[in-house]
């Protein structure tokens, strides 16, 4: 089995302003992100040989690749639409990478977007699903509240201790998000605000939940050996891991609800490809799937940043703050940047890409060379981990 390491380079990226984009359709957001990426890569739209589109919903404008072909007028080239829950944006980039790595195309584009704010509903929706009754009233917050309840129970955290721990993550991400002009939420919050916020799904309160946002993000990739023709500072893919478990872990015997095996297995795949032995020491920054604050806490452990059951100690020590040992969610994460589902994997990659190029602005992590982007989707059922580096090695 070969590794993807150093075979693919990202030569251009774009990301529109995330948020409640009432006055923008999916096409507007895609156009803004794509033309930023074209300019960044220094290419013409005609140079693109193949495209991958990631979106979860988008029923209102049709499916397939047309949601991309139409606004960008990408006609006469193959466009594939992919969907893999919240890992959808990563999935577009992942599949584009394999096609370029095999030599079929030299330049490919990966696009992710979601338009959540045209549904009339503030959350992701209630009790959809594959069966007329089995997922009754399951919500995204409750699936992750199950984790919080069980984690607090298993590791002996009182409700107050648990809530304060995850609230610290919200405070950190709000601080980071306040420094990114494209983030949905750009204001800091206090610990007290986070702890005392109205309960959405106990024990998770309003500030434990990420934004439901509109957005689009784009990556343009080429083969690593061609990358320097386009720019001096391409970013290389060092590893890609993807993993799934049940559609409904809610019914899976033995599922422990204190961690995500999918994150652990996806991370292992990516670490093995990249040759990462000690993720906490070797990774310089990570942008992870903090759909809920409790999710980020668990992710620290699943990615091997903190020992199992000990993430609280690292949160208390500020390990993952912008000036900490291993900054996490430097752009505000899903919490503040927002979570337009299909765009998120690419938005995370956008932040890593900029940071590894030294373009992190006020959020710049010192000596950033290796970055990790992580998505987690389903209930939770699927995870993608991607590793990037600024040195081809």
């Amino acid at each position, binding site marked *: 089995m070969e590794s993807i390491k150093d075979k693919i380079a990202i030569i251009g990226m774009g990301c529109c302003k995330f948020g409640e984009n009432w006055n923008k359709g999916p096409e507007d957001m895609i156009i803004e992100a794509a033309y930023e990426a074209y300019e960044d890569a220094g290419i013409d739209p005609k140079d693109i040989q193949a495209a991958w589109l990631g979106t979860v919903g988008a029923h209102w404008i049709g499916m397939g690749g047309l949601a991309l072909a139409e606004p960008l007028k990408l006609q006469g080239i193959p466009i594939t639409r992919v969907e893999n829950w919240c890992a959808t944006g990563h999935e577009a980039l992942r599949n584009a990478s394999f096609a370029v790595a095999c030599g079929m195309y030299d330049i490919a584009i990966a696009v992710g977007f979601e338009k959540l704010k045209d549904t*009339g*509903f503030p*959350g992701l*929706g*209630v*009790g*959809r*699903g594959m*069966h*007329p*009754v*089995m*997922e*009754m*009233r*399951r*919500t995204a*917050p*409750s699936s992750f*509240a*199950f*984790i*919080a*309840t*069980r984690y607090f*129970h298993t590791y002996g955290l009182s409700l107050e201790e648990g809530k304060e721990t995850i609230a610290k993550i919200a405070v950190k991400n709000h601080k980071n998000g306040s420094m990114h002009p494209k983030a949905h939420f750009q204001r800091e919050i206090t610990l007290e605000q986070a702890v005392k916020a*109205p*309960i*959405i*799904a*106990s*024990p*998770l309160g309003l500030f434990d939940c990420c934004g439901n946002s509109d957005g689009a993000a784009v990556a343009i990739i080429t083969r690593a050996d061609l990358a320097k023709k386009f720019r001096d500072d391409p970013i290389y893919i060092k590893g890609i891991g993807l993993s799934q478990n*049940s559609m*409904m872990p*809610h*019914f*899976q*015997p*033995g*599922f422990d*609800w204190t961690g995500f095996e999918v994150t652990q297995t996806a991370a292992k795949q990516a670490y093995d490809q990249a040759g990462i032995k000690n993720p906490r020491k070797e990774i310089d920054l990570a942008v992870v799937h903090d759909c809920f604050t409790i999710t980020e806490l668990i992710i620290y452990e699943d990615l091997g940043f903190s020992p199992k059951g000990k993430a609280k100690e690292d949160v208390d020590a500020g390990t993952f703050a912008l000036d900490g040992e291993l900054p996490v969610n430097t752009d505000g994460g899903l919490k503040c940047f927002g979570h337009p589902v299909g765009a998120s994997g690419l938005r995370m990659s956008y932040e890593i890409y900029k940071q590894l190029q030294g373009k992190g602005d006020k959020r710049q992590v010192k000596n950033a060379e290796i970055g990790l982007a992580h998505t987690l989707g389903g209930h939770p059922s699927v995870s993608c981990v991607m590793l990037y580096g600024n040195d081809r090695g």
Partner: protein
Amino acid sequence: MVGIKSYGAYIPISRMNRDIIGNAWGTRPIGGERSVANYDEDSLSMAVEAALNCLDGEDRQGVEGLFFASTTSPYKEKACSSIVATVADLSKNIWTSDFANSLRAGTSAMRTALNTIKSGEAKSIMVTAADCRLGTPRSVDEQTFGDGAAALLLGDSDVIATIEDVYSVSDDITDVWRTDQDTFVRSWEDRWVLVNGYTKNMKAAISGIMKKSGLTPKDFAKVVLYSPDARSHMDLAKSLGFDPKTQLQDPLITTVGNLGTAQPLVLLISALEEAKAGDKILLASYGDGSDVFIIRVTDAIEKAKNKRGVKRGVGLKMMLPSYQKYLAYRQLVSLPEEFIKLFPSASVMWRTQKWVLSCHGSKCKHCGLVSFPIQRVCFGCHSKDEFEEVRLSDKKGKVFTYSLDNLAGGVDPPTVQTIVESEEGGARIYCLMTDCNPKEVKVGLPVEMTFRRFHREGGFYNYFWKCRPAR
């Protein structure tokens, strides 16, 4: 000897103090409390509860028929008896039938079952009766009515009580009715109803059976009379020569209300719970005539006394805090529309009936792992189609994790979502918790399964399992 082999009753846990209704309308409360089916309950789900209580410890495969009696069937066309039988995990090769349109439907089902068994066609048949009738808002009916269900397993062996004699009268009188256009129960002038409907027919039927059997009021330990209210049955009993103080079964009007079709069966169970071997019980129902039964308690009565019956059901209660909740439970007010709905599919529900209705999980023959819903490929060892089905509906469990969700909508937020770990091989079941105080929910809380109505997308009722605190 043909008679009653087992019984089970079900009274919904919610009670509404009648003062709440009186205060809501500025009318005089009639006193006491009434039972109120939860928002996720109906006559079918209550009949299931009673049936499962009745079947506890009984041989399900031996049951050769199931009848469902109600004036408030969720369906006008479609048999509820078949649904109850499937949920109760009975054999497919049985006779199911619905009895409807009369408060006598429950006793008519009893009489049909009795005759079928006597004829030798079947050895045991279960009769269920349930009602959830609506009194017009502000009416006395609204206060008097209650919701509940009963189940009796009739058979020709091991009976706790024999049915010695039966007698019926039929009389056409438009005293209490609902047309096919009505939501609420209607009635004619109450004195006329009492004199020419209830009293006249009950007297005719009871006198008839006394004459036929040669028995006198003194021969009965208990007389169980259908009671439209808290008083009328007393006057009736007195006029027939019974002593209301010692012989008359409490009709539970002050504690749960008039349970409609289910009432005669519920009160019979109540009488059986207090009966001793040799007691004779007179049971009389009412509705365009009357069905009367003479029942004699046998020595086997003691074995039934740990069943979930009426006493237990009356004792378990949670008070409904407001009249508005009652209106919401019965869908008498419009609540904000649910934004995202589950997709309905009759064919999917049919295809997955073994776990949706019968609550079967799969137990792997190789590694023993138990999964719910039924899995063709084992989570543990990947073996394919090598499992046996195991019933989880009668197994206890514990809350593994939970959340109280304010986003999930519904009639009665917060939605209590749980993952239950079943005592059957640790199977995991994601389910909503019902009939609970959200504050009592915690990891490790013992729970039991309960069958509930979920939604009516697609124009038909979708039912599935929930959990509730074990009681």
